[in-house]
């Protein structure tokens, strides 16, 4: 019992900060909105196709970003977890390096590359692969590219940690039992790395859903996601009621997706969760 209490004290500063600086304001906003406008703005959002489309775009961008990150991040994570190269630490640092540059700077970087007269278009034009510049800037593709770049380290690090905990002998065992590398991956490695996939996807999905800088800069003024809408309602339209309704709906949708995601993988996660082979 006393040990449990001691552990609680260790987390006390964080718990306290979260309660005072996050939960309390959120609750205040909700109560304030409900008292002032009742459910008006919630109803407005959920019945107006303009807003519903913004929600759809946001979810679609976040899902596609998460999917691409999983496909890009997993092989890299596997390599990092299994390599015996002396350069492993250097590679880790290179992967973490983007964290040192702010999202704003990185978005401007992508503008230089993706713009109509950007590096990519000039390169493709020069090669004669295209006749007119590709329209990438200010589309959902630009936003996805920016988000993938921004969030890749989260995905890689989450999965690397879990794969490092999977005994390499399990892969050898699968091979000795007749699995070619692809089957060994699907029958052993993939199911055992589900916990890492869950944590990686949870992180990047949440961060994509709530990203503001990347969609604002790479999507442009007319590209609307939930977070840019909140900003617009607060700072431009001064409609705080609608802004808080959007915030709450965004939070609810994220939670909904995380619950679905966890349920879908619950069976396997329960069996392998946190446990390592002796």
């Amino acid at each position: 019992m006393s040990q449990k209490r001691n552990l609680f004290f260790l987390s006390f500063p964080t718990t306290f900060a979260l309660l005072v600086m996050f939960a309390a304001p959120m609750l205040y906003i909700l109560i304030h909105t409900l008292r002032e406008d009742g459910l008006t703005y919630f109803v407005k959002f959920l019945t107006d196709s303009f807003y519903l489309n913004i929600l759809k775009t946001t979810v679609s961008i976040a899902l596609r970003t998460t999917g691409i990150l999983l496909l890009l991040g997993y092989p890299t994570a596997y390599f990092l977890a299994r390599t015996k190269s002396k350069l492993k630490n250097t590679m880790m640092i290179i992967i973490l390096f983007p964290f040192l540059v702010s999202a704003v700077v990185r978005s401007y970087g992508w503008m230089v590359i993706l713009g109509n007269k950007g590096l990519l278009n000039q390169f493709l034009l020069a090669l004669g692969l295209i006749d007119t510049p590709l329209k990438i800037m200010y589309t959902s593709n630009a936003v996805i590219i920016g988000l993938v770049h921004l969030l890749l380290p989260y995905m890689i690090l989450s999965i690397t940690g879990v794969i490092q905990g999977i005994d390499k002998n399990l892969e050898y065992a699968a091979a000795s039992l007749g699995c070619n590398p692809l089957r060994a991956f699907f029958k052993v490695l993939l199911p055992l790395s589900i916990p890492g996939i869950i944590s990686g996807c949870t992180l990047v999905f949440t961060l994509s859903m709530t990203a503001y800088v990347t969609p604002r800069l790479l999507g442009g003024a007319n590209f609307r996601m939930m977070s840019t809408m909140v900003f617009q309602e607060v700072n431009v339209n001064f409609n705080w009621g609608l802004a808080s309704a959007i915030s709450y709906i965004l939070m609810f949708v994220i939670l909904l997706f995380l619950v679905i995601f966890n349920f879908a993988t619950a069976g396997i996660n329960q069996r392998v969760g946190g446990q390592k082979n002796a």
Partner: protein
Amino acid sequence: MAMLQLDRLTKRFGDFTAVKDLSLTVADGEMVALLGESGCGKTTTLRMIAGFSEADEGVVSIDGRVMNSIPAFKRNVGIFFQNYALFPHLTAYDNIAFGLKVQRMDRQVIHTKVAQIIRMVKLEGLEKRYPRELSGGQQQRVALARALVMEPSVMLLDEPLSNLDAKLRVEMQVEIKRIQRVLGITTIIVTHDQEEAISLADRVVVMDKGRIVQVGKPEEVFENPASPFIADFMGFVNFFSGTVESVTEETTGIRCGEHLIEQSSALCADMAAGDSVKLAIRPEKILVSDCGGSSNPLFGRIESTTYKGNITRVEISGVFPEPLFVHSSDFHGSPGDSIGVCLPPEKIRVFKTK
């Protein structure tokens, strides 16, 4: 079943040669132990047989078929891992059925085969448990069954008993031997434990620094090690140096300090007067006080005694420059006492030193 042949296998890691020119033939149904200290190349050899690691030189063949370019998953070599390497997300049943399912075998056939092997390794009733819900011994049986159910042409066991407590070790030792006899599978055991090698194998292969240093029946290797290194490994414990003084048809006289040890010439092949030699004897072969008419009585002083239950370990100084360790099952004496010991010549092994 199958015959396994290793022909001049060599494996290097950078500048380090892990296995050097290793040649060995394992007969159909034979059980061979690769015995050596960690880093002697035994595990590397095992990995080359399994196909997890590629030989730089030499050939691995099973029944005359060269295996070098055949990937692990096509070799049909069963392997038992030291840490069992059970799939934690699968039940005991699914672990055992894993390989058969990969082969897309008929479900009914799989069921029959798995049930049969489960009976053989005595795991009835535990089929639905996950590995973490099984004891160490049970996990080991699952690992064994998982490999055996594939009817491998060659079975590899990596330190099969090292993770078990003393009681379970004896039990599993008997089990492994029984199962191997019943199935008649060609088997290689890798171990650093001489007792494990000697009690399980038909033939013991001692390795050192990537090479084979002795091959023989367990009793041969145990009784007549080929070098002081192997003798040390086999538990000889007591080593002392000497010089050959006289050689006749029957006896060879060896001078060790002030003592002259008379050894049967049959046990001192190729030795001439003036050769320097190393002598070795097991602590349990030295007789204390009552020498029972045996020759070579020597006197020394008890340095320390350690009671170990079934035996007492006695350290004696003053006989040779090196301390002498004796295991006695019925010892009465205390440090400081003087003591007479006898070294039965037929129990002494003599090695020529270069």
